[in-house]
């Protein structure tokens, strides 16, 4: 193998003889990525932090005026924005709880010897891989009051899913549950298959009932992985934009991302939208922090 070495460098210098030193390779491999992310993710955020203290409107040529914390004060005193946060919270709770129930439930069903288990699992995972925007659009047809297959299958007549302001948020959450329960299922299956078999055997010898086994063995052991699924889905549901934006335009489904989008790109209140973006950003970073801590905890096990 040594003959394949192609180097004509001075042999007296070990680093030169062996090509680049490890430290320069490390820097060469890591620094470009970090720089790229700083330039295209962090720099824009610094830029918008600056604008968040101004009354800038990107639709006009008027120069930006410094207004201090005015935008933040206005936003935090705006009941409209608070209602957007409340809608978002409600949406997150419904959709994550639904995904947890359905996803974990299906995983419990699947966690046994079933013919074609691999194929069924892959098929069940399909919805989460598809484009939210494009598939979400098609749910409009499924929800259609007069010729949608959902009303037909459930015998609901001409039930209004998306046009009824009270129902619309639930309809969006239902589609989200359909798309993302597979994610909870996938993680739950991993958790369930990691529960040592001998615990169940011991429980069977002790004549423990199914409830006891579930609450004392299964659930505690799967809990950390379920927690990861919940935190991750909470974060994603909090950011939801595509699905709600495409399915309805009801004020009752105006999630915080949609409010932000409208403020920035329809009302062109650029300065104020930058301030709102920062409020949202801090919330997301807080959840991300919890998520990463949990990930590392599970990884260590």
């Amino acid at each position, binding site marked *: 193998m040594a003959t394949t070495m192609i180097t004509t460098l001075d042999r007296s210098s070990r680093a030169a003889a062996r*090509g680049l030193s490890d430290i320069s390779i490390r820097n060469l491999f890591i620094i470009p990525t970090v720089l790229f992310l700083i330039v295209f993710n962090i720099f824009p955020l610094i830029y918008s932090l600056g604008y968040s203290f101004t009354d800038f409107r990107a639709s006009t040529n008027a120069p930006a005026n410094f207004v201090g914390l005015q935008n933040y004060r206005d936003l935090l005193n705006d009941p409209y924005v608070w209602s957007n946060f409340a809608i978002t919270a409600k949406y997150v709770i419904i959709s994550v709880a639904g995904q947890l129930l359905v996803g974990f439930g299906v995983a419990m069903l699947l966690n046994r010897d079933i013919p074609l288990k691999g194929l069924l699992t892959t098929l069940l995972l399909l919805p989460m891989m598809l484009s939210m925007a494009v598939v979400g659009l098609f749910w409009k047809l499924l929800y259609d009051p007069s010729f949608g297959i959902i009303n037909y299958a459930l015998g609901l007549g001409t039930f209004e899913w998306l046009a009824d302001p009270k129902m619309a948020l639930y309809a969006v959450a239902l589609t989200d549950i359909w798309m993302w329960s597979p994610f909870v299922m996938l993680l739950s299956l991993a958790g369930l298959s990691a529960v040592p078999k001998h615990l169940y055997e011991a429980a069977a010898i002790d004549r423990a009932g199914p409830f006891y086994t579930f609450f004392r063995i299964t659930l505690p052991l799967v809990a950390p992985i379920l927690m990861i699924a919940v935190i991750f889905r909470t974060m994603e549901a909090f950011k939801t934009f595509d699905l709600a934006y495409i399915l309805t335009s009801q004020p009752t489904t105006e999630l915080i991302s949609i409010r932000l989008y409208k403020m920035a790109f329809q009302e062109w209140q650029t300065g104020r939208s930058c301030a709102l973006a920062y409020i949202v950003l801090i919330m997301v970073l807080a959840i991300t922090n919890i998520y990463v801590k949990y990930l590392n905890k599970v990884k260590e096990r």
Partner: protein
Amino acid sequence: MAAVRTSTEIGFNRAAVVAVLVVTIIFLAPIYWIASTAFKPRNLATTIPPTIVFQPEISPFVKLFTKRSQLRTPPTPEEYAAAPWWERVVFDGGEKIVRDGKGEVQWSGYPNRFMNSLIIAITSTVLAVGMGTFTAYGFSRFKVKGEADLLFFILSTRMLPPVVVAIPMFLMYRAVGLNDSHIGLIILYTAFNLSFSVWLMKGFMDEIPKEYEEAALVDGYTRMEAFFKIVLPEAATGIAATAVFCFITAWNEYAFALIMTNRRAQTAPPFIPSQVGSGLPDWTVIAAGTFLFLLPVAIFTFLLRNHLLRGMSFGAIRK
């Protein structure tokens, strides 16, 4: 274990199998409905009761790719006979294909948007996986000061809500003329996927025994040679899986594309919904467009099936 299988247990297992089948059918129904609507004649797409058995047609795909207008008067028998099969299919639906002065068929916006999606998703995937692989190796093999913080920083850039990042990016792109350009979206998707690719690839790199390279280094390879000749081939499966995940993310992305593009560089996700205007949309055409758009992802999901868990958990959970 086999000895204690009671009849209740067996019955319970059977019930579970039936329940799994029912759930699978419910979960796949929307996808089946997209696929079947894509092959329906228009008048069967929105019937009550829903049409399940029908003669499949190719006309939705012909309509998807061409510009059409309403027929004021039906075509004469000669016109109809002279038309190629794909034009007749459109005639049958009461429409005609729009042609320019030279008689060339006018394409719809779809093929162009599909191509944009392909160009942007593939280029950004190559960039993100390329850079991510190097960086993951760096983190995996060398001591990096503040490694945990740096990795958190890298991951957090992915967690930012797209609309939050899009506001300043929109202003900056406008200033340098990158709005509605392929390069603009490629940069955004690369940045978005880079963090994912670093996290996932780091997991794959950690699994390659250090001894492989050390042996090569002893044999006189330089670190670079060892990386390219020993580590990269070992990491091939991981690289492929990461690439497919990055491709799917870029392919599916909607918010950035909606905000940053409107025509020239528009991708399929913002385009497909924009076809549903006022009035009665032709759902067969939308289904055809959706079907073609979802097909690559469905195929990739099957190829990736053993890596889904890993990919969806950023490499944290492996089987």
